[in-house]
Each structure stands twice: as C-alpha cells, then as structure tokens.
C-alpha cells in the first residue's frame, strides 16, 4: 500500500480549501448525530458491542481454522478461493481470473481492499476497464482521486463539483441538461451505470463479512450497485482481507446490528446481500464463476502483536466521523486510503512507519474514536504504540527530541525544575510581543491569545505560606 504523507503540509492545504471545509462541516454533523440517535434507540447497544468484540476476538484467536473452513465451504458451493500474500499477488490474481474469462470490462462494487491494492490503475494498464459502480467511487474515479472516507469515498466533493465532472465525462449527453439537484445527478449516474452493469464481462464486490460455516460473502450497501455487480456479469470476484471471516450466520447478525448504526446511524443498510458460490442449476440467474481473493498484505503479521486488536475492525468509519482531526482536515490529508484513527494505526502497519511517520501524531488522543468504535478497539493506545516505535527509530525531529530531553531531565530534578518553572511563570506573564519569542508558541499566538500566567508558581507560593 502506498502512503504519501507530508501530513503537516497536506493538513495546511486542506484547512485552506473552502469547498472541502464546507463538505466536512456537513459530514461532521450528519454522521455523529445519526449514530447518537440510533444508539439512543437501542438499549442493548453496549451489550451488542461487547458481543461484537467477543466474536471478533474469537475469530482472531482461531483465524487459520475459520479461514480453512470458509475455503472448504466456498469450494463445496462451487467457488474458488485464492490466497494472496500481498497487493501484487492479489492484483495479478484478479487479472488472471479476468483474462481466463476473457473479460474486458469489470463492474466494481465498493471495496477498500481494492483501493488498498491499487487495483484500478493496474487493470487499466493491462487492458481491462474497471467501472466503479458505487456512486461515491464512481465520482472519485472520474476525478482521478482516492477515497477520502472509508464508507463515503466522495464525502469531500460538493454537488457542484459532481455536476462539473459529470458534464466533462458524459459528453454525449445534452449540454443544457439541468444538474443542480442531487436527484438529477443520481438519475444521470443510474442511467450511465445501468448500461455498464448489463454489459460488464465480470463483476467484483468487497466483503463486509465472510461466513465460515457457509462459505458466504456478505456486503452491505445503500445503492444496490453491489447486487448488480455480483449477479449480472458472468463472473463474480469477491476481494477481501483475511480478517473479514466470522464463524456463523448468527455472528454476522450481531455484527450487522452494530455496523450500520455505527457507520451511518441506520438500523440496517438498505441492502444486505449474501452470496454463496456461483449460480446453481435451480437458480434463475447469477454468475457462472465465483472467486474469492483473500488478501493478507501485512494482516497476519499483526496477529499476536501489539496491534492485534486492530484486526477486529469492521470498517464502519465511526472513528473517522468522531475524530476532531479528521473533521478538520478530511481524509486526503492522511495520504493513505485508510484515513483517520483506524488509518493512522493501519497505514504504518501496511506501508511501514517510515512512510507513515506523521500519522500516529495526527491525533489529539481525545479518545472519541475508541468511545465510538463498535468493537472497542483501543485506538489511542495503538497510536501511542506507533509513537513509541517512531521515537525508538529516531523518526521524530531533532528539535522535538531535544525539547523532550531537556524537559524530561528537568522533570527528574525537582530543584532544577522549580527554577525553570519560576522563570517560565515570569516570562509567560509577558505581552504577546515577547511570548512570540518562546519556542513553540508562535503557532498558537497566530490565531489565539495566550492567557497570561499569574507570575509566581504554586510551589513557591505554597512554600512561602505553609512550607
């Protein structure tokens, strides 16, 4: 996976983008309120979170066994399973399947793993035309962008920008057509995509869950595009991370109850689709070929280590929605297809901490992510764990290292610390002009006042009064 993070510069750019900021304001209010409302209406929500966590923990303790059971049941249902160690193997595997079936066009349901392995550019370079069929993914495909949110990939795009890119891409349509309303944009996308579904040689979906006992893949969508991608074309390819497996249908029903509520605040998504193997003799329709491409790409290396719990993630996006930093800068600033708190834990794991060194620090550690996570992943703890690794490997700036060393030395020597504190208490009473010279304060002072210190430390006053 590719991570290009110059988070500080990208964040600055994002803060200065009025269209992005307007989009983020809409998103911030929408998702958080919707989740809170849905949770308030379900008294057993906290119990369900415990059960969801327990299911995911159990799977991760027994991942090999459940994956093998899943594979056996896919094969029993007439499908094939492909094990891929990394992104390159997964891309190659998908291309091979497409070549075997002679597919030239490929209707894709939304898949974050597809983004993770950067499938589209690879297929294009190899003569296959991928068509994103999720509206958000379709929009960003036309804009040549990566998703900025794991469940709402085009959340950064305004409807005016959608109209603009539709006019450019759909040149055969009447230039005078009105495209001001979301409905008109949706109608146009439906019109275009419907033809693509019907003519695509192969289809792909991700998977929200893989069910071991039945060999089933499950997707949740709100547009129905996933269903068309997987049932209309002759070949259905499921692309999923190995951690997506769960033991039983009952387990999936628990996870579904927390997933949609955590993600969009819906009780359940509009479509929840289960697919098991290719078309059977008695089925009216369905694909002739059914393939599951399972991706490791760094996941198994997390098992049993300090980031083990991250594999519980069910990709609901609640941690993004509740993160104040994500809410301020949006997803692209993170330079990874997995943004926000979950991304800042996963990106260093998948792309290396050297490439993603800024991300664990792009957090106030406020804990809103962990509080919203349906499977209670201790995200702040894991961000700190990456900070530890980053510090150990010397990936922090000399300046912050030096500052920290000086401060730590003082903190370990109370007499010295007292002197430093007394000086600080004097300096920090001064007017802004002088405060600006204090290292690290100029950024704060650019937009905020710095409340003045009272002049004498508590410790000095206490000693004088009671010491």
């Amino acid at each position: 996976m590719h991570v290009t993070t110059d988070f500080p510069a990208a964040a600055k750019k994002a803060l200065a983008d009025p269209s992005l900021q307007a989009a983020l304001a809409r998103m911030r209010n929408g998702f958080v309120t919707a989740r809170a409302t849905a949770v308030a209406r379900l008294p057993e929500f906290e119990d369900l979170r415990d059960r969801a966590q327990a299911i995911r923990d159990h799977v991760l303790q027994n991942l090999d066994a459940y994956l093998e059971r899943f594979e056996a049941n896919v094969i029993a249902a007439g499908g094939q399973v492909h094990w891929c160690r990394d992104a390159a193997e997964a891309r190659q595997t998908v291309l091979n399947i497409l070549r075997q079936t002679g597919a030239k066009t490929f209707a894709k349901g939304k898949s974050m793993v597809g983004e993770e392995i950067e499938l589209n550019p690879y297929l294009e370079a190899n003569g296959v035309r991928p068509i994103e069929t999720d509206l958000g993914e379709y929009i960003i495909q036309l804009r040549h962008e990566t998703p900025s949110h794991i469940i709402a990939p085009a959340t950064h795009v305004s409807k005016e920008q959608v109209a603009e890119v539709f006019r450019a891409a759909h040149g055969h349509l009447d230039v005078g057509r009105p495209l001001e309303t979301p409905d008109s944009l949706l109608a146009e996308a439906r019109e275009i995509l419907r033809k693509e579904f019907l003519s695509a040689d192969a289809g792909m979906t991700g998977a929200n869950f893989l069910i071991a006992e039945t060999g089933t893949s499950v997707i949740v969508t709100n547009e129905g595009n996933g269903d068309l991608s997987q049932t209309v074309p002759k070949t259905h390819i499921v692309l999923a991370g190995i951690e997506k497996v769960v033991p039983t249908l009952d387990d999936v029903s628990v996870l579904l109850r927390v997933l949609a509520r955590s993600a969009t605040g819906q009780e359940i998504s509009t479509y929840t689709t289960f697919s098991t193997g290719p078309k059977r003799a008695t089925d009216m329709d369905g694909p002739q070929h059914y393939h599951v491409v399972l991706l490791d790409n760094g996941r198994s290396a997390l098992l049993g280590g300090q980031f083990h719990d991250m594999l519980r993630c069910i990709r609901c996006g609640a941690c993004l929605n509740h993160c104040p930093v994500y809410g301020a800068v949006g997803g692209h600033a993170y330079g990874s297809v997995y943004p926000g708190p979950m991304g800042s834990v996963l990106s260093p794991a998948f792309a290396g901490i050297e490439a993603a060194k800024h991300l664990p620090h792009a957090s106030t550690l406020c804990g809103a992510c962990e509080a919203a996570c349906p499977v209670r992943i201790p995200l702040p703890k894991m961000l700190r764990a990456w900070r530890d690794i980053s510090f150990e490997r010397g990936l922090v700036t000399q300046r912050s290292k030096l500052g920290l060393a000086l401060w730590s030395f003082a903190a370990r020597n109370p007499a010295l610390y007292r002197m430093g504190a007394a000086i600080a208490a004097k300096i920090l009473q001064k007017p802004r002009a002088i405060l600006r010279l204090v290292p690290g304060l100029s950024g704060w002072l650019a937009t905020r006042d710095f409340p003045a210190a009272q002049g004498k430390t508590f410790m000095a006053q206490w000693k004088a009064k009671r010491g």
Partner: protein
Amino acid sequence: MTNADAPRTPPDHPRVALLVTCLVDVMRPQIGFAAVQLLERAGCIVEVPEAQTCCGQPAYNSGDRADAQKIAKDVIEAFAGFDYVVAPSGSCAGMVRAHFPELFANDPVWGPKAAELSARTYELTQFLVDIMGCKNIVTADASVKTAIAIYHDSCSGLRELGIKAQPRTLLKAVPGLAVRDYSGSETCCGFGGTFCIKYPDVSDRIVTQRLADLARTPGNLLLGGDLGCLMNLAGKLSREGSPLRVFHVAEVLAGGTDGASIGEEG
C-alpha cells in the same frame, strides 16, 4: 468506568497529597489553592509533596517511554504513603490512574506500585463527590452573580476517568448559577497537549468549531476541569472578542467569579 476497583471508605480526615500539575503550577496557581481549600473544607489534611514535578504525560504521549517510566517512578515515590492523591486535572489524574499501570505492565517491581498509586489517585471533583461524598462544598465566599455556566468536559476526564456528573453535582450548589451543556461539551477542544504546538493550525480549526458550538448556547461562563483545555478555549475566545469568561471549576467552587478569569488581565 468510575472507580472500577471499589474505593475504600475514607478515614474522616484522610491525608491527601495534591498533585499540583505543571500547568497549574506555572500558569494559574490560584487553581491549586482553590483545590486545597475545597479539600480542606471536605475534611482532608492536604499536603504538597515537594519532590513533585510533572506526571510525565508529554514524554508518554511523544513515544519516549523510557523517560516516561523514569518520571513515573519519581511520581510513585513522591506520592507514596498518602491516603489519596488528588489533581485538579482529568488529564494528569488520568495519566496516573489509567496509564501508569500500562507503563509498567510487565514490571514485577514497579507494576504493583503503579497499580497501588493508580487506585488511590483521583481528579478533584471525582474525589470530592465519589470518595468524600460531598454534594455541597460551597461557602459564602463563592460569590457568583446570577450566571449561566456552560460546562466543557475535558476528554481525559470524561473518557479515561468517567467524569461527567461530579463537577455538575458540585456546581449545582452554587447559588445563582445554572449549569448547561453545549453541543461541543464532549468534543475535543483541539488542545491535545503537544498537539497544539505541533499542529497549531489544525488545533486552531478544532477550537474554532467549539466556538461555533458555544455561540449557539447562551451563557456567560465557560467552566471545565482541565487548565490546558481552558487556556485553549479562553485564548481563542479572547482573540475573537467573546465576552464569555472562563474559569476552572475549582475556582468557582472555592471563591466564585469575582476575580480575573482565565485570559483576563488580572
């Protein structure tokens, strides 16, 4: 998660060590004295261990575990032997209570010591309400002209220590004061310790959002339990020319709002 390990019944006059916190020490000692006053009113014998400096959170959150551990060991020693340790900050109390045991998770010597200190360390309002059973800690000194106070929960206090009801319970007893939440009460203010130094522009955008939230709730005071968050909010409010006056909850409970608020010329 309020006090998972059931607290002991406190002695009538427990010996309480005040963890002053580095920000209160340097920036606003008045909060420390307010905390001492409140603890003494509640019947505690308050001491201020001289060897204390800082809880080590900046090192801990910066990935410098070795220094965080060294500082934590000093803290454990400085605060040994007291019935309780109390800090006028959810962030520093959270560091000791929630993170010290984690720092020494696999250490057979310091692990139990960290756990022992963690179990008797509290944030001020949490200690007064949950341990000392206070409902009304206000005396005639607390002069508050009729006011509406908006409360901002600090993230560490709220999510690491479960502090929500305690400050509101105590503030309810202040005559003339009505306490309200606002839509941003539980959302980060953007301070984040070293975060506001490292990413001042992102931090500023987050506090700007809190100001927009605050503008929708009428009130004349903004109160909270963590000086870092309050300095951030007060600094932004004063730059924007807002009349909202910002105080630490301990200041209001101990002495009212006649004095200079955070960021006001004293």
